[in-house]
């Protein structure tokens, strides 16, 4: 959790720096940086043991984006300490993606996503190479928007015996600009599912996230 705290502090500090630049650039500024907090639930289905383990907890993270003209670089980090009926674990996930925005409401991104499950028994690492499509639309003027993002993996690896079969997910939410500085608040729901070859393992995560960002989302 100490690492998460550092990430949050760093995100806030960097956000303050980027605020002025983002303000000068308007809502579609070249820089966006924010912090995330929310709930995470992880569901694991093991076909061999026919067990389903569900753990949940609070998640923290950060999100950032650089945008130059129609190109953008996107990064996201989340860390959570999960517990419940099954063995506790830390779930850490990070992703980075390069993207283009052909039109104002559409973004296309490609990049890797890494997920690590840290338990007492060791660390599982999943790496996904994914393509993402995101569209947003204005609800109430330019200040309140809704968005929907979907992704699927092209390939991936794990440090488990079986290789990655498929991964994909969806995220949707509402973005609202606050009437102070260039701050935005984002409420979103995110679901992701990954399975190993032969469906011997299925991992799914639900995230309900609240983000506070500088310079849009």
């Amino acid at each position, binding site marked *: 959790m100490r690492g998460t705290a550092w990430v949050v502090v760093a995100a806030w500090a960097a956000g303050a720096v980027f605020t002025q630049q983002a303000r000068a650039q308007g809502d579609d500024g070249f820089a966006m940086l924010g912090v995330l907090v929310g709930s995470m*639930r992880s569901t694991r*289905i093991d076909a061999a043991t026919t067990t389903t383990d569900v753990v949940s907890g609070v998640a923290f993270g950060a999100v950032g984006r650089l945008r130059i003209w129609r190109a953008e670089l996107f990064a996201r980090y989340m860390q959570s300490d999960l517990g419940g009926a099954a063995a506790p674990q830390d779930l850490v996930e990070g992703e980075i993606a390069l993207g283009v925005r052909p039109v104002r409401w559409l973004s296309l991104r490609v990049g890797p996503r890494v997920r690590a499950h840290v338990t007492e028994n060791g660390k599982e690492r999943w790496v996904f190479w994914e393509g993402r499509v995101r*569209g947003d639309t204005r609800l109430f003027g330019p200040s309140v928007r809704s968005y929907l993002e979907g992704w699927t993996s092209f390939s991936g690896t794990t440090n488990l015996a079986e290789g990655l079969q498929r991964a994909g997910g969806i995220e*949707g939410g509402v973005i609202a600009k606050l009437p102070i500085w260039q701050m935005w608040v984002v409420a979103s729901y995110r*679901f992701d599912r990954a399975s190993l070859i032969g469906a011997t393992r299925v991992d799914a995560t*639900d995230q309900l996230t609240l983000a506070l960002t500088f310079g849009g989302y």
Partner: protein
Amino acid sequence: MTRAAALGAALVLMLACASRPTAAFAQTPAELLAQGLRAYDELDFDAAASLIRTAVGAGAFATMPPQRQAEILTYLGAAERFRGNVDSTFSVFRSIVARHPLYQIDELIFPPEVTSLFTVVRRRTPAIELRAPQQQRLEFEPGQGRLVAWAYPSATHDLLVQVMTGDGRTVRTVYAGPIGDSLEIRWDGRDSSGSVVASGAYTLAVQSRGASGRVERMVQLPVDVERLTVDTLAPPLPPAASVFLPERREGGPGFEALLGGVLAGAAVAVVPSVISSDAKPSGVRFAVGTALSLGGVAAFLQRRPGALLAENVAFNDSLRAAWRDSVEVVTTLNQGLQRAPALIMRIGTATRVELGG
């Protein structure tokens, strides 16, 4: 013709020439006039009358200044008076008064029997001296300016002052009544109905009436009127359609919000179940999906197509009102300009017309 007859004719011609003053031959009008005045001083009134009348009949007399003409004619009238030709005296003095109504006889030169006779003639001869800004260009707006001429009479009498067209039609009677010492004649460029006259040649006719009411003489003052073309202001163009804001909400944004909200909500609620039938997604997705859908519906209702945009309507109304105001101002200005066009009057030289005996 016989020789005796020819000699007789020559004798008669010589006698005829001998009976006339010898100076009348081969002399200039100025010399004749000088001799005539000298003859008057020498009380040779017959010679004086003859010489002066001859000089007056010469063309050079007309080129003399009016005052000098009147003085010479006064000598002629006085000579006739002393010759006993009162009628001739009256005639000469009447012509003096008709031509020079303000002329005063010099009582230091002429005796009372002459001056009194001139006074009587002057009283019986209605005439005026008309003074106007000759050859001047007057420019004014009717109602704010006028042509002014001054009439000075030989004696008190009745005047009729009219503005007439070139074909003799009366445009306006400016004055009708007696004239005492003087009269200021004014004309503001309007006809008898109050309308501004058209461009053209007009005459200010001042008629002097005798005791019987008959018009005896008239002074005509040509007045060339030019009605200036009024440069009116062009009415302001209405505002271009591009400057108006849409008064009713267009359908695009409302439908976009509805579609985006409902699609995102439905996807969030449904897609997780579709892609993960084994690992059951959290039920919170329904809450999020419902919120997104309701947000889209609410946004659509708030931005529903065809809704009146009050702020834009007010802005457009202010544009239209400003345009109407400017049109009204220009219209008022143009009406004022057209109602009172400027006039230019060019005044000619007055001429006298003798109408009565």
